[in-house]
């Protein structure tokens, strides 16, 4: 600013101040502000300079005083300009700082995203690897199981073959021993048979000679017996004819009895009662004594379960129709 021009307060204030909205001030907690206009500020500056000059420069002339005031004003302008430059620089630095902060934030976000991605990728790789390993482990297990089964089968087969070989050898031994025993038994039997044969031959010869003696004795006795036989034959034929008569009589009795029974009572048995046979029939007193005794029992208090099984009305009706509804059946039974 040149010395000739008056001090532009408005411009100086605009240059050395920063703008701020009311909301921003309110955010900062400033709700009430003092307002100065250009005229008031000019006055305040003039008053301040006058006071300083008057107090500090009482001995100065008016011209000196004016020069001082001008120098002060120049100094003030210079300070204002310097302030404005500083302020511009500060604003620039603030902008740079904000930009840097935003960059930093971006970079942090990117870093975060990158880390997350890396984690997910690693996790996925781990899971995939695990699944693959699991499959391989299963395959290995199956192979192991089948190999074990094969080994077991082979071992069993070997044991079986070994056992069969041993048992075949034992069976062969047993067969050989059996054959030997059979052969020895036959030897013994043959020897025994031959011994017995010789004994029997001797006995036979003895018996034959005895027979000869007896036959001679018997021939003489036979003649005597023949005579007595003829006698006995006559007696026996007499006895048989009498016995036959008796049997015939009994048979005819049976027939008559069977016929009289209507084929019913006599229809049974080949062992029917014969005339003169004794049949055991208990007396009434005996029967009553047998059935009259009362025994201690819990049977009377028990209910015997009944089950139903059809009807017999049809049979009864037919029977009644056939027999005329009378007691003919009973009479037939009793006969």
């Amino acid at each position, binding site marked *: 600013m040149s010395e000739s021009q008056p001090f532009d307060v408005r411009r100086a204030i605009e240059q050395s101040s920063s703008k701020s909205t009311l909301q921003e001030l309110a955010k900062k907690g400033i709700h009430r502000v003092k307002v100065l206009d250009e005229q008031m500020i000019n006055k305040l500056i003039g008053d301040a300079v006058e006071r300083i000059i008057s107090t500090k420069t009482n001995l100065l002339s008016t011209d000196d005083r004016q020069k001082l005031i001008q120098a002060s004003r120049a100094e003030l302008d210079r300070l204002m300009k310097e302030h404005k430059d500083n302020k511009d620089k500060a604003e620039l630095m603030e902008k740079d700082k904000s930009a840097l902060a935003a960059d930093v934030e971006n970079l942090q976000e990117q870093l975060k995203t990158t880390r997350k991605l890396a984690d997910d990728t690693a996790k996925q790789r781990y899971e995939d690897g695990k699944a693959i390993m699991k499959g391989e482990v299963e395959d290995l297990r199956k192979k192991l199981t089948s190999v074990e089964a094969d080994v077991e089968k082979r071992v069993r087969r070997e044991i079986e073959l070994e056992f069969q070989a041993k048992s075949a050898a034992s069976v062969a031994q047993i067969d050989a021993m059996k054959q030997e025993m059979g052969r020895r038994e036959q030897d013994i039997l043959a020897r025994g048979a031959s011994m017995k044969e010789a004994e029997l031959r001797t006995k036979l010869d003895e018996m034959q000679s005895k027979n000869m003696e007896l036959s001679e004795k018997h021939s003489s006795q036979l003649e005597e017996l023949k005579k007595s036989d003829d006698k006995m034959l006559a007696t026996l034929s007499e006895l048989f004819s009498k016995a036959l008569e008796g049997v015939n009589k009994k048979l005819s009795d049976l*027939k008559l009895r*069977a*016929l009289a029974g*209507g*084929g*019913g009572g*006599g*229809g*049974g*048995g*080949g*062992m*029917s009662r014969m005339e003169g046979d004794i*049949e*055991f*029939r*208990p007396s009434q007193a005996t*029967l*009553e004594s*047998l*059935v*009259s*005794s009362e*025994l*201690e*029992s*819990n*049977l*009377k*208090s*028990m209910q*015997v*379960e*009944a*089950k*139903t*099984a*059809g*009807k*017999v*009305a*049809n*049979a*009864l009706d*037919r*029977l*009644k129709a*056939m*027999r005329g*509804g*009378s*007691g003919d*059946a*009973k009479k*037939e*039974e009793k006969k």
Partner: protein
Amino acid sequence: MTIRYGKGLDVGTVNLVAAEENEKGEVELRPKRNVFIDVPIDAYTKNMLTRLNVPYVVQGKKMYVLGDHAFELANVLNKNTRRPMADGLISPKEQDALPVMKLLIGSILGQPRIPNEVCFYSVPGDPIDSDLSVAYHRDLFDAVLRSLGYKPSHIIEGHAVTFAELAEEDFTGIGISCGGGMFNICVAYKSMPALFFSTARSGDWVDKNVANVLGIKPAKAALIKEKGVDLIKPKNREEDAIAIYYRNLIQYNITNIAERFKSAENMPSFAEPISIVFSGGTSMAGNFISLVKDVFKNLDFPIPVKDIRMAKDPFNATAKGALVAAQLEMSSQTA
């Protein structure tokens, strides 16, 4: 619906079966095994048996478990059961068992529904291969049923089978009851028994022989048999033995029956071929009828046969037939 009174009782060597008709006209059946076994006599045993619903009876100083529980206990303890009956009749070795039998019969028959309700019980025909007498057996059971409040009457076992199974054929044919002690055969013509008899070889004979051969108790052999055996395709050693003795049993009985028919003088002559019906526990073995048919093929049977079959209810046919006879008798009394 009016109840038709009268009861039927199958008095078998192995099983007792009572039959009566209920208000719906259905036949109600109550079976009970005809066996008992000795157990220690003390208060603890009595309480335990009562708690477990096991029937027992105290006779003098002895205590017996009765019925199906006795059979099970015998198999568990590997003991023999005691049988009040043998070969179809009251056992001479078990005279003391008559009161026990009375209890068993009383438990399945119950009280008479009306005074002197008629009860028909089955009796075997006279055996052709032994000299057992049925008269004593009949007298005893008459006394037992009278003491229970019934009016007793009897029916031949084979005849009862014809009542139960030959209604559709005018009660004409042959009924064979294959019980534990006997085969009971009856030839019936229009509901009248023309010929009846029994053979003393049946289920018990098979059990005894199988037990001897296998070295087990007869009760165990009976248990194996009752579990179900296919006589044509036995599965093991035990079933093989049962099949062999069954074949022998069938051959013996069918041959004897054929011979008896041939020698009988009072056989009716049938204009049409007839049916032969088999019933009884012994006939319930698998393929029993097939084996019978095999034997028939090689036999000259004196009666023309159109059909050989199993009863619709082989286990209960005798009881049902006896029930029909009792109802017929009751209806004739009220008529």
